[in-house]
């Protein structure tokens, strides 16, 4: 368990999804649009059609250099100027897969050019040079809570007085290797994901995504507080059936949020079991809080989801409207799940949660500074 009680400010935050930047993504979610499309899981080699959401202009197949670099450069162009990568302004690069698809492409094609982007250190070093950062760059990767982990580490660096500001950048772009891996688990199937819906079988979709946040000691309109991490260490793919792992992560956030009226941005991939556990834990920790999940439209952007969805949550608060839970039809697992969009001016905080393989859970409270 890791907790960071001190709050840190968010000076800037943004994302890229198949819909575009955070305002465009937020607007598309409010319209109820779905970015997921059936795509052959092995790219040019075909395979079963599974729900994927790709950034326009790129294909699922690997390229060298990777074609997702253009999207990442666009996102980087929206980050405020700074001496990023210097000791006073460290960078935390987070993600689940980095360029791992390149290693599969190397095996398939024998082209050594794919190897350079395939491993975390080499991929990050190339990014560092490409984006013009200094050497103070840390890599954080812990599956689908990677972005949360980057945020909490950056907050601690600031809290310890080691930096005034820090950049957390997170990205995950899909490849046949990644999509094929999820498909092997029988959770990426031809059904489209319907987070928190009552139905017979679950499904998740995957999406391209990248996001950033500039965290600051003193600057910014938003605060992150009660940052919480908990790992059940229970099983590779399963959570404890009693939901205690979710509760252990959310309880500290509930303590920080006491007295506030919050809404809950859940993880909500579309798997039935985890969805039920998450909704139940959210309901107990934050009674009356409406629960929303956006992966039925954006797909699961894996290690980047925490930052991608933070950027959309901030956009929701900024505009006063929260997109509802996208995907599927029929009733929700719980009456706390908001299927329609709602005005959020009466709320004074957002709990943002993500979960990951291995029973890893992460959450924090987003509020106004």
């Amino acid at each position: 368990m890791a907790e960071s009680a001190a709050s840190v400010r968010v000076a800037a935050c943004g994302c890229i999804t198949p819909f575009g930047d955070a305002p465009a993504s937020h607007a598309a979610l409010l319209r109820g649009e779905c970015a997921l499309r059936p795509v052959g899981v092995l790219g040019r080699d075909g395979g079963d059609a599974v729900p994927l959401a790709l950034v326009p202009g790129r294909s699922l197949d690997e390229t060298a250099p990777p074609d997702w670099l253009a999207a990442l450069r666009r996102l980087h162009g929206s980050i405020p100027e700074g001496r990023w990568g210097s000791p006073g302004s460290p960078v935390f690069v987070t993600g689940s897969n980095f360029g791992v698809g390149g290693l599969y492409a190397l095996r398939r094609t024998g082209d050594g050019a794919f190897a350079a982007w395939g491993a975390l250190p080499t991929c990050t070093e190339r990014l560092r040079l490409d984006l013009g950062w200094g050497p103070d760059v840390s890599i954080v990767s812990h599956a689908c809570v990677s972005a949360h982990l980057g945020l909490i580490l950056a907050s601690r660096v600031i809290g310890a007085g080691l930096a005034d500001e820090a950049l957390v950048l997170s990205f995950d772009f899909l490849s046949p290797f990644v999509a094929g891996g999820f498909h092997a688990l029988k959770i990426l199937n031809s059904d489209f994901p319907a987070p928190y819906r009552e139905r017979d079988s679950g499904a998740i979709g995957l999406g391209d995504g990248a996001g950033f946040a500039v965290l600051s000691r003193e600057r910014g309109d938003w605060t992150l507080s009660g940052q919480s991490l908990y790992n059940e260490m229970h099983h590779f793919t399963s959570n404890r059936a009693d939901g205690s792992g979710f509760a252990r992560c959310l309880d500290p956030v509930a303590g920080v949020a006491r007295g506030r009226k919050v809404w809950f941005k859940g993880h909500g991939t579309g798997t039935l079991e985890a969805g039920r556990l998450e909704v139940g834990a959210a309901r107990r920790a934050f009674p009356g809080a409406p629960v929303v999940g956006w992966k039925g439209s954006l797909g699961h952007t894996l290690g980047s989801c925490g930052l991608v969805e933070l950027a959309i949550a901030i956009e929701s608060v900024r505009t006063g409207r929260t997109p509802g839970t996208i995907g599927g039809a029929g009733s929700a697992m719980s009456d706390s799940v908001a299927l329609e969009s709602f005005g959020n001016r009466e709320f004074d905080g957002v709990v943002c949660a993500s979960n990951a393989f291995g029973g890893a859970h992460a959450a924090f409270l987003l509020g106004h500074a």
Partner: protein
Amino acid sequence: MADPLTARLKLLIVETLRLEDVAPADIPDSEPLIGGGLSLDSIDALELVVRLEKEFGIKIASSEEARSALASVAGLAAYIRERADPTRLPS
């Protein structure tokens, strides 16, 4: 006389999951495979599903369907009989 498909499935379970202390005949027909006496977990279930798909030419689409199919050896045999090409079943 044992049903050939049931016997084949028990052997497949032992082989695929490398159950060193379990003989095929030790596996009851009606005991739950997941969460039962064999202590199989979701990764074991996946391994088994992949083997079953190859052996019998069937497709198990989702993790929920896999869990349902693996309710017991008898249930699994019924599931496969409904979906597999009869020529692929042991006789």
